[in-house]
């Protein structure tokens, strides 16, 4: 839509240009139509002068002038010439000769006129032809131009179309290339993944086999270690009791039957890291004494030995355990 206005303007501009062109051409044509008559006249006069006698030079001059002006003048010259005829034979001869000459001239003139006419016609024709040609040319030109324009537009459109097509094609190609690349990539990846998976599977299988072996060995080792640890731990109960004994400061308010329970947490180093009262005795001092007995003990080196021998056993049996504080043989 937006092209309509510019197109109209362009057409108008072209039309204007065509008009101005035609106009100037026409003007030139009018000029060129007058010009050749002058040239013919001059040409004619020069010939007449060259052929005419020196006597008739003046007359010839008149003649010269006459045809320059109007044809009737040449008629006058003829009249003058005829009036002079009866003068003499010579004159007559001369006259005859002159007449002949005149006739000849006339023929010539006629011929010339004919020629001129012919020429003029020819010129006219030529002009017309030229005009027609020009017109035709113009038409052709305009047609050509239009055609060119059309063509240009068409070409442009074509180009655009082509460009678009090319672009589309390119894009398509690009897409196709991309797709292909992707597919390739995917395929490659799939292949790689497949390979990897296969490798992994193989590796895993190998690993599993090794692991199983290791596990078996470890289990055996662990079992052996645990057996040792178990043996080591057989007296751990008494050991802990002995460790606690000196550190358990029984408050005087403790009464027989009093019982507090704590859960303790040890590090593999045997160090106490947490003491939690899980059953109160009802006597704050006694509860605290129980907790403090563990804190005061600080660590159990023998438990550390067991943990070193079998971490699994330590984790299972000795990382956390309970202690029940129930002093016997209190006074009350």
């Amino acid at each position, binding site marked *: 839509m937006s092209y309509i206005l510019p197109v109209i303007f362009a057409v108008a501009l072209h039309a204007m240009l065509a008009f101005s062109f035609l106009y100037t051409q026409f003007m030139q044509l009018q000029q060129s139509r007058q010009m050749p008559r002058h040239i013919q006249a001059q040409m004619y006069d020069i010939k007449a002068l060259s052929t005419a006698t020196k006597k008739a030079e003046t007359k010839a001059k008149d003649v010269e002038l006459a045809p320059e002006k109007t044809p009737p003048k040449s008629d006058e010259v003829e009249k003058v010439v005829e009036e002079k005829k009866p003068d003499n034979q010579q004159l007559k001869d001369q006259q005859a000769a002159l007449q002949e000459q005149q006739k000849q001239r006339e023929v010539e003139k006629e011929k010339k006129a004919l020629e001129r006419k012919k020429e003029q016609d020819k010129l006219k024709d030529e002009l017309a032809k030229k005009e027609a040609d020009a017109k035709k040319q113009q038409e052709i030109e305009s047609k050509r131009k239009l055609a060119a324009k059309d063509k240009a537009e068409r070409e442009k459109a074509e180009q655009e179309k082509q460009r678009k097509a090319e672009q589309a094609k390119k894009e398509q190609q690009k897409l196709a290339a991309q797709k292909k690349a992707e597919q390739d990539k995917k395929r490659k990846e799939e292949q790689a993944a497949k390979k990897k998976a296969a490798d992994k599977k193989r590796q895993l299988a190998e690993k599993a086999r090794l692991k199983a072996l290791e596990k078996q060995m470890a289990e055996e080792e662990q079992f052996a270690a645990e057996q040792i640890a178990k043996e080591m731990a057989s007296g751990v109960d008494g050991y802990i009791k002995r460790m606690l004994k000196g550190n358990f400061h029984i*408050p005087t308010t403790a009464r027989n039957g009093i019982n507090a329970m704590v859960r303790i947490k040890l590090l593999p180093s045997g160090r106490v890291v947490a003491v939690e009262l899980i059953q109160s005795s009802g006597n704050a001092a006694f509860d605290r004494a129980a907790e403090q007995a563990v804190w005061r003990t600080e660590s159990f080196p023998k438990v550390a030995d067991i943990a070193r021998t079998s971490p699994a056993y330590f984790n299972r049996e000795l990382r956390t355990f309970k202690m029940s504080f129930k002093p016997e043989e209190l006074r*009350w």
Partner: protein
Amino acid sequence: MVKWNIKNLCLVLLTLMCVNANAELLVEITEGVDQPTNIAVVPFGWNSDSPLVEDISAIIANDLSRSGMFKLMSKENMLSSPATQDQIFFRDWRISGNDFMLIGSMKPTGAGLIATVELFDILTEKKIWSQTIESSNNDLRDIAHYIADEVFQKITGIRGAFSTKVVYVTVEGLGAARKYRLQMADADGARPRTILSSNEPILSPTWSRDGKKLAYVSFETTKPSIYIQHLATGKRQKIQSFKGINGAPAWDPSGNRLALVLSKDGNPEIYILDLTSGNLQRLTRHFGIDTEPTWSADGQSILFTSDRAGKPQIYRVEIASGAITRLTYKGNYNSRGRITQDGRFLTMVHRDENGFHIAVQDLTTDRLDILTNSRDDESPTIAPNGVVVMYATKKNGKGVLAGVSLDGKIKFTMPNASGDVREPAWSPFLD
């Protein structure tokens, strides 16, 4: 398949848990050591040039020490005197064998001072208690006893009785110059003041349960009479007198009745006198001597000493039914029974081949423990928290007050008062 797996897993877990729960090692600690709690009472910082009239941290340390439950680190052994938590190097205090430490700082204010105290559990490095106490300058000992009470309660779970009072009788002079004084002092013997002075004997002071009144026997009229004296006003009131002995008053828990010994009916018997109505109720009827009544904590029965079995022993009489049970069997002399507030322990004067001692009997097991090895011990009186027994004894031929922890682990002698000191009576908690 999946379902089975989950189910299986759950089962396995459950089994493991069960196994674990069953398998958790339980160590029974049946032995320990009788060792008092080690505590360091660090001398308090005092932010002033003028010296304080009392050494608060020393008073606190003394209080705690006399309970028998604490072993105080001596000031000389302390490597540092932290006044704030950030100054404490717990490791050092732990190495020095302490379980707890009390730090504090004081600064003067316009009227008195502000004390900030903090109690730490050294083994766990945790703050157990802290408080800022504002006080006037002339009751430093009250502040000290208050802090000691708090520390005692925080660590032992038992209410501290360091802010309580004790009354006792002193005898000074010879012949006509002989002077009897009823005195009241802090539980540590400090700040004694005379409540009554007389030229005639004063006996058996006893506290009302609200701690506001005393009852005692005075011979000021040459005949023994029972008097009630209001501590706040000093107002005295002689109660109804009877022929013969009027002695050994004991206030019941409600404060409305007095148990007493009267010999108006021939020989000393235990009676209950209703102070509002004046009604007298006879509790015992025996040809033997029944004396030294004391109320059980619940007010339902009265314990007394009687020689009805030939030798003095301690008996219990149910007030409602009049049923009498003998409580003491060990030894041939047990008298002056006093019972703890929980009703479990009975302290008494027990005589063995070495003389008279303070003994304690567990009424649930009847186990008797002799707490003192001095030979002239008498008049035991139990701190309201049942931790310490105070009694009168002889030191270098002079009557003094001494104390022993109920477990007998610690004994101490009260600061010397002028004259012979006898018949101490420990106040109830004074709120």
